[in-house]
């Protein structure tokens, strides 16, 4: 990832039981979607903390997509509702810090919705491409960001 690369890099946090399975199905079904996403599998979107999203942006991600189960069908009952609140708070924080909140989005897909997953990825890539590269990575590349990091997430 570098500032000269015009292709946006999007970190996609996918829950194991739905979104990751949908992404897997999209692959098995040979569905085409832009290769800009870097999938991080999470046991549940409820595991995702606000600082996961913040650190992704700090490390130079142009966008972050959080993909969880459809509302009401979380394997852990309420994980995706927790994630929804955290994503909204993180969007507020990003806006306060001067980044466009549209760079962070949460979507809900079932394990069978590979088409929907591919569509959400296309939408996200389109949104982030319109916004342009993240201003955070203008100054710093990912190695420096990692060096700077202290605290809970290393």
């Amino acid at each position: 990832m570098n500032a000269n690369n015009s292709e946006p890099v999007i970190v996609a946090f996918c829950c194991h039981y739905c979104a990751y399975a949908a992404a897997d199905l999209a692959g098995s079904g040979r569905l085409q979607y832009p290769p800009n996403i870097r999938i991080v599998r999470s046991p549940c979107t409820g595991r995702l903390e606000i600082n996961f999203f913040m650190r992704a942006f700090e490390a130079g991600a142009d966008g972050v997509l959080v993909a969880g189960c459809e509302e009401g069908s979380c394997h852990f009952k309420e994980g995706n509702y927790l994630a929804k609140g955290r994503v909204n708070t993180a969007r507020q924080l990003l806006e306060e810090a001067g980044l466009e909140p549209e760079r962070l989005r949460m979507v809900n897909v079932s394990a069978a919705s590979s088409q929907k997953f591919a569509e959400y990825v296309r939408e996200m890539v389109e949104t982030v491409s319109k916004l342009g590269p993240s201003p955070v990575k203008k100054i710093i590349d990912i190695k420096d960001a990692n060096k700077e990091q202290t605290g809970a997430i290393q």
Partner: protein
Amino acid sequence: MIVAERKTIPELVDILRPHKNILVLGCGTCVTVCLSGGEREVSIISSALRIASRVQGLNFKIDELTIERQCDNIFIEQAAETIQKADAVLSTACGAGVQAIAERFPEKPVYAGLNTTFLGILEERGVWTEKCAACGTCVLHKYGGICPITRCAKRMMNGPCGGSREDRCEVRPDRPCAWQLIYKRLKDIKQLERLTEIEPPKNWNSSLSGGPRALIREDHKI
């Protein structure tokens, strides 16, 4: 528990603008429980500040540390070395913690990262409500354990005011009328006769009106 909430990132950026090496110092006690200034929140605030710094070209270098309790010298000692290295400290403790750090490091700028709001409890997940005004003379025994000073918007010692609507406070319709609660509670514990007594005006000397308070326990002094 002391309840506090985060200042906005633009506010913090304005406060910290003159400094480069900044330590965001968290507190592991009340503000951790009310999810505003513990280790996790320190990490979030630091991230947001780093992002703001890069977007606005401010050149902040943010370090993070959380100690068990900022209002206690024993714990502050553990952070002394890191604090000395920083140009300024952004404390995410309550107002007492911020001042304890500032007193301990007289030549170090120490700023509050939170607005300390009240003494309260976690009422339900994500909701904290005020329960105590620390007025210095507790009257809870007279009101069935419900504080009219804190929970009645008009601080009435002889209520109710008559303005409540459907058991809601007329000043804050999102909150229950404290006097409705007091009546119900006294009825439940069969102490309604307490309401026949007229309470004289409260002596506020034991509160902030009497100046900054100190508690001296001779039995614990050395």
